[in-house]
């Protein structure tokens, strides 16, 4: 048969056609497999289901080993958005007990990368946290109706003692800034918000583990990837042992009911905080679970700000509790000796200025001045120091020397307690006054009130307690801290180191003696507990918010101090009215374990007393 050569050429067209197709396909394959690597990531998120294993958060014990904070199981509803199929939203909302609007709001927020930067269609997202066990039970039966949703068990906090909220703090869901600051966190994780939960977050949280599971197209788990070779076990958080004596804390809080203010009790030779009370306060379990947000807003609106920790952030005039710092400074600077006497004719009268005082012998030396809390004595001492140009050159320079001594005793700067949010109080320096009055235009009399803990100077109750601990130690202190031990590790070194103020140790015993005299026969005789030698100093601080604040600091036993306490009751009047009795009750309760029969009436009176109403009227 003759071949048609013209038609035979068409083999090139047909052959060429399939060659071109193959070339196009190879280009496409190159594009898919080599040029574009997004498919690799898709494939991994398709096939690997990384299941986070949450470590249990560290338990918190008090100094005596009692469990204070422990874990309770909680359930979160998670979503893998990619796997979600149309479902009965109404059914889900009813089961969860949320409104449809709430559901939609959560849905939109979850998908909004500006709120949830870790959003991905392929990875688990937290939809709703803190389901109750009952909700969990109800949901478990229905989960098959909601493809793409699953429940994840997680740990929540629970409390045996419903106190010390300011110390313990609480945990909350991580915010966007947490996520950005620390890539340990994933959306929906929890982190410490306040208290030791925040300051010891890295110890308490442990290390999350991960289980890599293989998941097929139906979302069913096929097993563990490489028999768990790449899995990572969760490491439990470390347990904390608090310095706090939780029963003393509880007792101290009960004494502060219906009063505003703070109590700080420190074990002097360790710097361990035995009790850190702020009043009003709240039950820490209020800020756990699904009601956290609601309760948080409630607490924010409550009068007298229970969320505000007065013990470490309150700016209070220290009043007469400040006088020991003055005595120590004057002794150190050689302004006074123990024999120096200053006159006090119902106050300090100099250059047309009068600072009132109450009736006592005059002139008097240091110890009786401390005993009776004589304003005149300390004003004179202050004037002699600040205006001694022969020694310091100018009032400003003298004031700087004075300020540095006071700073070394823990005022004007944060002490460095292991709790977030501590405030530094306020201690003016010479520059501050030069700015206010003009350089060289001020002298001792201009600023005389700081010598008796009034005027510009303010301190936190923690700083007052720390001064008391320093005197109890006769010349040194350890930075106060609320955590005594961390499991498997040691606490930060600064909580072991002794800090020495710029005052010679030899000047402390007389000051301590003056405070002992105040208890035996001075301003704080109500602190004189049978069989327990207490030393103390009252404070009655004038303030612009109404009635005087009632303050007290004291330590005991006198010769071997086990506790130093500072009490500050806003608008409580005289230091002796609330500060002294409350402080002495705490000392007695801590050292003895109970309140002696003879002092029961004081206890009853204090438990029932209320200053809140008074302060309301005062305003």
């Amino acid at each position: 048969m003759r071949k048609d050569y013209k038609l035979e050429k068409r083999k090139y067209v047909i052959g060429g056609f399939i060659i071109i197709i193959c070339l196009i396909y190879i280009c496409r394959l190159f594009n898919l497999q080599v040029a574009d690597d997004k498919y690799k990531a898709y494939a991994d998120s398709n096939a690997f289901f990384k299941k986070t294993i949450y470590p249990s958060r560290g338990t918190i014990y008090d100094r005596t080993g009692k469990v204070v904070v422990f874990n309770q199981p909680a359930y979160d509803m998670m979503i893998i958005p990619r796997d979600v199929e149309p479902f009965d939203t109404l059914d889900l909302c009813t089961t969860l007990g949320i409104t449809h609007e709430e559901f939609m709001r959560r849905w939109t927020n979850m998908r909004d990368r500006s709120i949830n930067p870790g959003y991905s269609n392929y990875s688990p997202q937290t939809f709703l946290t803190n389901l109750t066990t009952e909700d969990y039970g109800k949901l478990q039966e229905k989960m098959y109706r909601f493809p793409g949703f699953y429940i994840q068990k997680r740990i929540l906090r629970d409390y045996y003692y419903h106190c010390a909220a300011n110390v313990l703090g609480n945990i909350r869901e991580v915010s966007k800034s947490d996520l950005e600051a620390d890539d340990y966190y994933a959306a929906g994780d929890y982190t410490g918000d306040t208290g030791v939960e925040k300051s010891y977050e890295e110890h308490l949280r442990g290390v999350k583990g991960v289980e890599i599971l293989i998941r097929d197209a139906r979302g069913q788990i096929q097993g563990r990837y490489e028999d768990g070779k790449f899995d990572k076990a969760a490491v439990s958080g470390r347990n904390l042992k608090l310095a706090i004596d939780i029963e003393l804390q509880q007792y101290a809080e009960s004494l502060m009911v219906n009063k505003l203010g703070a109590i700080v009790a420190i074990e002097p030779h360790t710097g361990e905080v035995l009790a850190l009370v702020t009043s009003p306060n709240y039950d820490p379990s209020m800020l756990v679970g699904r009601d956290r947000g609601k309760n948080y807003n409630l607490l924010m609106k409550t009068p007298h700000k229970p969320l505000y920790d007065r013990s470490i952030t309150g700016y209070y005039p220290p009043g007469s509790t400040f006088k020991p710092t003055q005595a120590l400074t004057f002794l150190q600077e050689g302004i006074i000796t123990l024999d120096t006497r200053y006159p006090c004719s119902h106050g300090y009268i100099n250059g047309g200025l009068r600072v009132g005082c109450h009736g006592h012998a005059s002139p008097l030396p240091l110890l009786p001045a401390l005993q009776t809390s004589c304003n005149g004595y300390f004003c004179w001492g202050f004037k002699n120091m600040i205006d001694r140009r022969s020694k310091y050159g100018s009032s400003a320079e003298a004031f700087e020397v004075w300020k540095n001594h006071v700073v070394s005793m823990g005022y004007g700067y944060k002490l460095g307690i292991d709790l977030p949010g501590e405030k530094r109080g306020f201690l003016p320096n010479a520059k501050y006054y030069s700015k206010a009055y003009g350089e060289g235009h001020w002298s001792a009399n201009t600023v005389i009130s700081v010598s008796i803990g009034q005027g510009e100077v303010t301190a936190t109750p923690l700083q007052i307690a720390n001064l008391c601990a320093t005197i109890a130690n006769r010349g040194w202190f350890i930075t106060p801290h609320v955590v005594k031990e961390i499991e498997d590790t040691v606490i930060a070194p600064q909580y072991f180191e002794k800090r020495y103020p710029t005052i010679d140790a030899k000047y402390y015993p007389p000051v301590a003696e003056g405070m002992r005299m105040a208890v035996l026969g001075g301003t704080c005789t109500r602190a004189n507990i049978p069989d327990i030698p207490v030393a103390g100093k009252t404070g009655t601080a004038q303030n612009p918010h109404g009635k005087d604040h009632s303050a007290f600091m004291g330590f005991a036993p006198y010769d071997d101090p086990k506790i130093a306490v500072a009490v500050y009751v806003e608008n409580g009047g005289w230091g002796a009215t609330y500060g002294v009795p409350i402080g002495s009750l705490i000392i007695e309760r801590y050292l003895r374990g109970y309140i002696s029969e003879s002092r029961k009436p004081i206890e009853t009176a204090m438990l029932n007393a209320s200053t809140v109403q008074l302060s309301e009227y005062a305003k």
Partner: protein
Amino acid sequence: MLNNRILSSGNDNGSTSLFRYIDWPTIILYLLLVIAGAVCIYAASYDYDNASIFSFAEFSGKQIRWIGLSLILGLVILLVDSRFYETYAYPIYIAMLCLLLLTVFIAPDIKGSRSWLVLGPMSLQPAEFAKFATSLALAKLFSGYGFKLGTTKNSYIRAIAIIVLPIILILAQRETGSALAYTALFFVLYREGMSGIVLLSALSAVVFFVVAIKYTELAFLGISAGELTVFIMIMLIMVGMTAIYCRYPQAARNLLLWFSGSMLTAWVIEKIGVAVPGTYVCMGIIIAAVIYLLILQLHEKTRRMLHTALVAIVSVAFLFSVNYAFTNVLQPHQQQRIKVTLGMEEDLRGAGYNVNQSKIAIGSGGIWGKGFLNGTQTKLKYVPEQHTDFIFCTIGEEEGFIGSALTLLLFLGLILRVISIAERQPRTFGRVYGYCVASFLIFHLAINVGMVIGLCPVIGIPLPFFSYGGSSLWGFTILLFILLRLDAGRRDCRNY
């Protein structure tokens, strides 16, 4: 029915001479593809639960049996006298049509299709076996004495009837993919003398359709970018045809000037701020060109100007019917599939799921692949139909770009070899049959791989030799081995 002639006449014994003349490169390519296919099926159906056991219990084991049986089948085909196929081409074809018809009525409904004949433990798909029967019938028709496409009376009608009859029966079984595969036989008609314009028009129609549907955003002159592109393509085709097909470069130049000048004017007028009815303007420009061609036709002996004018008119008409057809003729799920394929809609859970998952599987393979049995996507059944229609994913994921490109090249090699075998046949029967084989392979390869890598709509057809299933493997084995038998006997045929 053994080949007595070969057995009795050779110097050596008959089978030696048979195996001397057989085309070994094709056999080797065939074996490579079949073995690679079995390995892929093993990988695709491999289960993480039984990771340590090398078990052929499931798909791969069955496929090994199919392969063994198909080798025996291939041998039997080779041992049959080559004249048998030519002699019994029509009876085989008619028998197969009857089987197809029977299937429509007795086949059980499996996933909406009635194409499977269940014979005891196995089920067969007659549509796959009808391929070789149709090829034989088509070859027989063309090898008829004095038959010439276009010259012989009713030649087109008879050829097309042979192709369309199985298509109708297979459509009745609701196996659209398999039915469409028979349209590949138009390549054979082209090789045997059908005008290239028909093939070109079909191709243009597909391109016009895709472009017009896909690019819907407004370009200028108030019409969509797709529509405008199609108008410009029609104009370029007219210019090209006038220059090359009509061999009239001067007219082509005039047309080019006319198109560019008038389109530019329209564009400038629109820029000035006058609303131009773009569709009518473009149509008017093309109609003017058509009239110009028709005037030129008056002085021509051939009808090539007329053809060119017709192409233009048909193209414009087609363009107008596209939108209508798309919205009114196609079913919503078909529209959906087309839209997803064209990348107009991203529906990752619906129609796009298969394609998206298969793209993920292939794309995650990288250059070298994840290694045999290490593919996660295919193992975990993310890709539907992964051991049948989507088997190419397994290659893509586990053997990477290198493996998948090599596989494509193996297929390309086989197809080109089949074309060259077809061309070396001394007889029309062998040549036409060879082109039928090549056409089926081209269609299956282009559509199957195209759909897996997201370039073609998802039409469920298997990848020859690779996809799991006895029918497809046997169907293609028979198809190929008959060609090898015809080729091996081509020397004997010279004596005819």
